[in-house]
């Protein structure tokens, strides 16, 4: 270590190469993190290396990967930001070197119990956010040089990008799985109702769109279309809760406005930051009547045989989560044989720089009172075509069976 200044330029270049190695990127993110820690420990001739990642909701750093210090991960060590060695690095966003390791400087007893004498740590930064801490430790007293700090920061930057892509991927996989599990796998078959649906996740991150179709004990049919603001796993989780709550209230009340008012009150109390649009319709058992309530959601498009679609005239209601005690109204619409009703989320109709009026008009032209599968296919072809949608798209088409004379 003493001669590290002139140790040789070659060694140093080899060290840098070791942590920025392109081959590392070919490993999976998890393997890459483990390999990176191993190399970091080796080139810095340290005894331990560990990565702690920030858990934003709790404000704690959680031990996630380690080399020579596996117990830290296995015991689920947590350090609050701002406290102890790792907490200080995260709070100050700069490297910290400790040559005095005991309970006064380090919160995690594993570190001093193990006999670590010197610690050096740097923040993991993604963009402008601190997402964790990388630290190495030595069982013998030593001085870490400026070059050592720089090398560690280089490794931390590499780790930060691996972690980001890992969490992004995990969130996306979880959100897609959650979404899939919550969408009805088969639409209920009830007498005169013919149903079809489409769900297309948006590019990049999955959002909080959902639809639900269920029969009620009364023989009525409930049709839900909803969209939670935001995207990714967080929105998908809220969507799941809203879907369950709405189903529960649907059993308790046959009035769609009452159901949405209860849902709104529940969300404002338990999920105060959430915002969502919902359309909830209840069809009579004979399917000749629909009672519907909208909460900030686009109204359905309705078409009768031989006629173009029109946007249903339904008074708008406020989004769920916007303000307490929003007034909720029910609109009753007569459903004639052969009539089709299309429910959808904003992803189907909103496009950058295209006025919403134009897109809604396009949708109305695309909706025909034909079998729902045919209708869904035509709507998706007309409004989506070959483009990769940025936002989620959900679409449910319900047709009342035509009388025998009609096709």
């Amino acid at each position, binding site marked *: 270590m003493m001669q590290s200044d002139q140790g040789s330029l070659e060694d140093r270049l080899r060290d840098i190469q070791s942590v920025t190695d392109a081959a590392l990127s070919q490993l999976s993110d998890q393997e890459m993190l483990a390999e990176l820690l191993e190399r970091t420990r080796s080139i810095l001739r340290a005894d331990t290396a560990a990565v702690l990642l920030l858990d934003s909701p709790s404000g704690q750093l959680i031990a996630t990967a380690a080399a020579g210090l596996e117990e830290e991960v296995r015991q689920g060590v947590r350090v609050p930001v701002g406290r102890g060695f790792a907490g200080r690095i995260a709070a100050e966003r700069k490297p910290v070197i400790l040559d005095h390791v005991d309970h006064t400087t380090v919160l995690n007893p594993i570190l001093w119990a193990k006999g670590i004498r010197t610690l050096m740590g740097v923040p993991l930064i993604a963009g402008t956010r601190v997402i964790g801490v990388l630290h190495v430790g030595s069982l013998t007293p030593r001085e870490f040089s400026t070059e050592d700090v720089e090398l560690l920061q280089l490794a931390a930057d590499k780790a930060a990008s691996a972690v980001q892509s890992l969490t992004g991927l995990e969130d996306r996989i979880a959100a897609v799985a959650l979404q899939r599990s919550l969408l009805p796998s088969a639409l209920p078959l009830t007498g005169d109702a013919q149903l079809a649906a489409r769900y297309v996740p948006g590019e990049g991150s999955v959002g909080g769109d959902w639809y639900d179709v269920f029969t009620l004990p009364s023989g009525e049919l409930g049709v839900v279309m909803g969209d939670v603001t935001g995207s990714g796993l967080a929105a998908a989780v809220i969507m799941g809760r809203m879907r369950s709550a709405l189903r529960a209230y649907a059993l308790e009340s046959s009035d769609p406005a009452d159901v949405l008012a209860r849902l709104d009150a529940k969300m404002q109390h338990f999920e105060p930051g959430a*915002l969502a649009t919902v359309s909830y319709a209840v069809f009579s058992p004979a399917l000749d009547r629909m009672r519907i309530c909208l909460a*900030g*959601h*686009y109204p359905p498009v309705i078409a009768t045989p031989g006629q173009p679609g029109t946007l249903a005239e339904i008074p708008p209601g*406020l*989004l769920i989560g916007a303000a307490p005690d929003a007034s909720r109204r029910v609109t009753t619409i007569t459903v004639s044989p052969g009539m089709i009703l299309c429910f959808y989320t904003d992803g189907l109709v909103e496009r*950058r720089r*295209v006025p919403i009026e134009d897109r809604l008009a396009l949708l109305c032209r695309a909706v025909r009172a034909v079998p729902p599968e045919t209708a869904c296919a035509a709507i998706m072809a007309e409004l989506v075509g070959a483009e990769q949608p940025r*936002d989620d798209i959900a679409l449910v088409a319900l047709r009342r069976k035509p009388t025998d004379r009609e096709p």
Partner: protein
Amino acid sequence: MSAHDYLIEWRGPRAVVRMPAEIDVTNADQARAALLAATGQRPAVLIIDMSETTFCDSAGVAAIVVSYRQAAGTGTQFRLVTTKVERILQLTGIAELMPIDASLDAALAATEG
């Protein structure tokens, strides 16, 4: 979409925040931050000036609602100026939360004194 300067323009106790020509998921965060900065100063009236806004989607609507919710209980009255994006504000129920004026002058006249 070019950057837009969100300035809070004060007309006595009334704050006016001018919104960009287009608001969608790519820039709604800035719109929300600007509106929250304005409500944080507890104006008597917050006028969201969308007179130059020709396009607004659900993300823009959410930005407005979040600022409205943030100001709940502070006494700030909201008004919104628009002619071109009124449809989405009607459809999403925003129009129930705050009066919509056709011009900034009309919004200012309605909140005189």
